[in-house]
């Protein structure tokens, strides 16, 4: 499958690397608006200019564009759009008219872009669709937690997100020494309710001046008193790592471990610290890499759109390729794999 990536920002450059690592996918190219950090670090990728300004920006940095956005769409079977938030609708018609499959990242709100799909919760919903939307990083993480607990057992989710104020490559955004909080419910609640039938979800959040990943305190109320069984399930869940319960955890240390063992410090796993206070309630701190956690599900979604019906097979292919690509060379793989289970 030939895959075009739109955007080379925080998500786009990780997608470009992840697609390149998949044995059954080819990176057709990347559409960019400017020559940002990711472009300058990978000047040899095939870049397509999404505007006349982009042509100038690329050439000013010694990069000759391979064409424009139309040319990229024409060279692809599937476009994954990681452009700026809420701009995907402006490109949707171009993808549709060209007859390419499309996936929109980052929680695009416009339902005309297709159904919201979280491959751990509703993989089959993507089969046969020409276009789908993927949830945001926090919804991806909460959805992974629900999938691990067992969606049919979860009646209600309440979560408080503590979010990074900015992305790691943007020093100019965010608060410096403060917390921005908001009592209004965030979009993650309705997103989860659309992904899991019959669940009630309320999510609120705050921003703090860190860049080492989001955390959230989650309370999951179960339909029956099966908390121990649900906790057992999540300990075996895919892309989830359990943190020790007997001591405080520190996102800086979690991130530092990822930095030591992977090329970019990307952490695809959701780290979970569990507590069972009542038989029908699970409380968890979750720690997620807001820049990387959506990548495995995005690759799964590409496989779903391409017609692979076996979700487990799709995940196996995704995880194997991502592990190969993100870890340091083979002599370090053993260390990396071991560390995943001893965060």
């Amino acid at each position, binding site marked *: 499958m030939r895959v075009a990536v739109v955007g080379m920002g925080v998500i786009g450059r990780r997608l470009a690397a992840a697609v390149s690592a998949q044995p059954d996918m080819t990176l057709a190219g990347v559409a960019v608006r400017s020559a940002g950090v990711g472009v300058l670090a990978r000047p040899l990728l095939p870049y397509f200019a999404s505007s006349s300004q982009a042509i100038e920006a690329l050439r000013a940095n010694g990069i000759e564009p391979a064409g424009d956005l139309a040319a990229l769409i024409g060279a692809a079977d599937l476009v994954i759009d990681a452009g700026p938030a809420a701009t995907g609708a402006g490109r949707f018609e171009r993808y549709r008219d060209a007859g390419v499959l499309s996936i929109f990242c980052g929680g695009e709100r416009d339902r005309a872009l297709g159904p919201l799909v979280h491959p751990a919760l509703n993989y089959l919903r993507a089969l046969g669709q020409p276009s789908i939307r993927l949830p945001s990083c926090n919804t991806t993480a909460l959805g992974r937690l629900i999938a691990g607990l067992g969606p049919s057992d979860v009646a209600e989710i309440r979560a408080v997100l503590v979010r990074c104020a900015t992305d*790691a490559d943007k020093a100019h955004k965010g608060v410096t*020494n403060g917390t921005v909080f908001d009592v209004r419910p965030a979009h993650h609640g309705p997103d989860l309710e659309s992904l899991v039938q019959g669940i009630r979800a309320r999510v609120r959040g705050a921003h703090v001046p860190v860049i080492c990943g989001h955390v959230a305190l989650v309370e999951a109320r179960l339909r029956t008193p099966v908390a121990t069984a649900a906790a057992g399930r999540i300990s075996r869940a895919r892309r989830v790592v359990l943190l020790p319960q007997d001591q405080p955890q520190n996102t*800086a240390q979690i991130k530092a471990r990822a930095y*030591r063992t992977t090329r970019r410090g990307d952490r695809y796993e959701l780290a979970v610290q569990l507590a069972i206070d009542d038989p029908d309630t699970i409380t968890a701190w979750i720690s997620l890499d807001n820049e990387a956690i959506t990548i495995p599900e995005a690759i799964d979604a590409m496989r779903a759109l391409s017609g692979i019906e076996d979700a487990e097979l799709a995940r196996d292919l995704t995880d194997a390729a991502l592990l190969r690509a993100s870890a340091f*060379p083979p*002599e370090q793989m053993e260390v990396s794999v071991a560390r995943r289970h001893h965060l």
Partner: protein
Amino acid sequence: MPRPAGLTDPMASPVLLGDWPLACVLAELSARQGGRLVLRDAVGPARLECGRGSPVIQLPGGAGLRQAIIEAALRSIARCIEPYPAGVSGTVLVPAAGVCGAASSGPIDAIRDVGIMRVEGPQFAAGGALRLLQVQHTRCWVASLAFAGNDVAFCPTGMLRVLPDPLAADTARATQFMLDLGDGFYWPEVVVGRPEQSQPGRLDLLAMFTEAHYLNQLLAGCLRRSEGEILPCE
């Protein structure tokens, strides 16, 4: 990264004895180069045994470790300045967290004056001094340096990389660029912005580096010691 010959020989496996803040990073860097660093508990100051019959390297701690990290970067930068500069002055922003442990003691929204570091010895004839400030920053070390010398020119070679202007403007973009290159968080090069001659006989530049630059020199030095070579810059 080139794979140093000899480190794969089990007889030559270096052993780090005792507690050292950068032990785990040194072990990871060694593994990344195809070697194997053995970490072993021991009483007394941390030390590195480079191989059977080789001298033991005493590993610095505290202020000595800061100085070693900075001097390693200074040496690499100074080698790229022609003629070799007579002296250096400036300010170094020291990360709040060591590489091997997350910050647990601040500073929070504050800057701590760690003191003046004297630069002495054969490297700089006129010597120099750097003020060290500890800041709430964990991505890398940042040094604003002024090198003194007649008609000095900058000729980057070896483990030095000059960043394009847009990337050198802040450590957020600079460090993400280095991560995107794929050498990991502990990138081995010293990264500099475009040097400027603010006045005759003075070259100003902003440098960013991680502890890996020093640690790689330590590993290379350890290897040379085990092979009986005398290091020229010690």
